[in-house]
């Protein structure tokens, strides 16, 4: 009865048990409706999902904030200027190079950095870059990992052996060393027509590094699915292998894929920050949360707000994705009642 596929704990054992549970509910309710009902009851997950949505919207509105409230761009220098704080004029960056802290006014709301740039404006633009890298990287990971896992698990034999070995190699390669090596090398050279300082370079590097973490569990699940009766039925009907993979097996992977998306997004944003800290991620003067924290670390102890502002923003964003993701996983997992009910 159990659809045990050897992929521990990814919420993959789906249809069979769900239908048993579904029997207690009104007839005709699908697994995703059921999951949505469970998610809706999880107020904490929804709240954190809302927080993340707010952060995304704020970051998308960065140009509006820059032009209508702060009246400065993310890379504009105000290093020699004076502004009015509480009635008295203050240097944006003092003579010994210490930048102004949060003013809580429209200009330099969260303070300035040693180059006299507005932290709040950079925070929003940096968020756009961090999130863009995160989303693109997640997309790359999910698409490639699904294809690799699907093909490897379905074809078995030599193709499976080769692909699994390739995944093992990437997996044994230390994440940060591979990320930094690829990041530095591609930032200098670019990828074909893509310029080295493009955001797509770190996105590609991060997306690539995480492939085995998703492809391995998907392969394991496909190994189990291909032995099921409905795949035999499709084969007897004369469907091609490609068709079976796309229309019979892929839909059964949907819940696994959905569970992995928030997890990968959170990890991608964290890795972007780490790579940027090591100089192998988003390239200056482009802001990202990682490059901003990195700038701030170099300015300890003069101006701790340079670390705190982007750092807290990053942690809140990643935390909200993680909590929301955990809620989604519990909702899709048939054993969710065991997990959260007790």
């Amino acid at each position, binding site marked *: 009865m159990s659809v045990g596929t050897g992929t521990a704990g990814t919420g993959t054992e789906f249809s069979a048990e769900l239908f048993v549970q579904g029997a207690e509910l009104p007839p005709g309710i699908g697994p995703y409706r059921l999951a949505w009902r469970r998610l809706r009851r999880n107020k904490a997950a929804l709240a954190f999902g809302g927080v993340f949505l707010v952060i995304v919207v704020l970051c998308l509105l960065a140009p509006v904030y820059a032009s209508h409230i702060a009246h400065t761009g993310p890379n504009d220098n105000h290093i020699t200027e004076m502004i009015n704080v509480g009635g008295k004029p203050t240097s944006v960056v003092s003579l010994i190079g210490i930048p102004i802290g949060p003013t809580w006014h429209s200009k330099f709301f969260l303070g300035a950095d040693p180059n006299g740039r507005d932290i709040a404006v950079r925070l929003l633009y940096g968020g756009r870059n961090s999130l863009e890298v995160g989303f693109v990287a997640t997309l790359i990971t999910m698409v490639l990992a699904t294809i690799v896992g699907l093909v490897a698990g379905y074809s078995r034999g030599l193709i499976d052996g080769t692909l699994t070995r390739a995944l093992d190699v990437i997996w*044994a*390669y230390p994440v940060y060393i591979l990320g930094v090596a690829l990041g530095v090398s591609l930032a200098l050279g670019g990828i074909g027509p893509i310029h080295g300082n493009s955001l797509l370079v770190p996105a590609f590097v991060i997306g690539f590094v995480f492939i085995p973490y998703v492809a391995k569990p998907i392969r394991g699940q496909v190994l189990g699915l291909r032995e099921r009766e409905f795949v035999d039925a499709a084969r007897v009907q004369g469907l091609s292998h490609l068709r079976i993979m796309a229309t019979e097996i892929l839909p059964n992977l949907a819940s696994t894929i959905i569970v992995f998306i928030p997890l990968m997004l959170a990890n991608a944003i964290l890795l972007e920050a780490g790579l940027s800290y090591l100089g192998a991620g988003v390239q200056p003067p482009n802001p990202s949360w990682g490059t901003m924290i990195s700038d701030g670390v170099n300015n300890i102890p003069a101006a701790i707000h340079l670390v705190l502002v982007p750092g807290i923003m990053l942690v809140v964003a990643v935390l909200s994705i993680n909590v929301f993701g955990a809620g989604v996983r519990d909702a899709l997992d048939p054993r969710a009642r065991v997990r959260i009910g007790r």
Partner: protein
Amino acid sequence: MGRFIVRRLIGAIGVLFVISVLTFLIFQAIPNGDPAQRIGGRTANAQELAQIRHEWGFDKPIYVQYYKTMEKILTGTVVSYSQDINVMSEIRRGLPATLSLAIGAGIIWFTLGVFFGTVTAVKAGKFTDRSLTVLAFLGVSSPPFFLGALLIYYAGYKANIIPLGGFVPFTNSPWEWFRHLIGPWLVLSVLFIGIYSRVLRSTILDTMHEDYIRTARAKGLTERQVLIRHTLRNSLIPIVSLWGLDFAAVIGGGAILTESVFNLQGVGQFAADSIQRLDVPPVLVITMLTAFFVVLFGAIVDIVYALLDPRIRLTG
């Protein structure tokens, strides 16, 4: 057992070979990445560059270059491009810091991970569980260099409790060694404690429904005995395997961020610095070292697995 070890060994050599080739190619593919330029410096003229190229063998085909580099690595005579220093002795210099970091943090994150995982599972759904779960999520969501920077600022500059970075060998002064490492240990552990406690919590909750737990209770064992001897013993298996792999990665220089922010001058920081200088030999050696540890501990973990759980057979 013997067959298992031999097969694993062959697999490991294969993985190390492919990883070394990949690392070599990544740096070869860089345009303007001519190592002769970096060895010669800015002032070198075309003739000097040509001579450097000849001496180091950069004018040879790439597979010859790879072969020569690997030969030097395996005989321990490999020299870095940028400073003309022996890579092996440089790694040996960084190893005490990295080992101290890995062993101390490894003990902390395993102990606290198991402790918090057990507490949250036993108190599942209660206030303790919820608040510790929030903390676990916070740990998983915080980049180590951010936590490290906060610790250095607040506990270092402000409170003057910990030093601002660096490493002191244990043999020089055990107390200073401890004081310099307590920050890095905590920062590195936070992430792993978060992951381990979550994994252990759900494994324990799954295990609690097994028949043998009911049997143990029926025998009249106390809840404490059931928890420690039966539930925990079986739930620890995935944690042990996680620990082995993570520990291996940290020993091999994988804790680059923690080492860099605390300026420990360990193997990981050496790797990061070398990559930024596009210095291939050290990167090659450290990458292979880390991968070696990951593969080695992977095999050890499988053996420990088989010892802990007689149902598991060693294959492949």
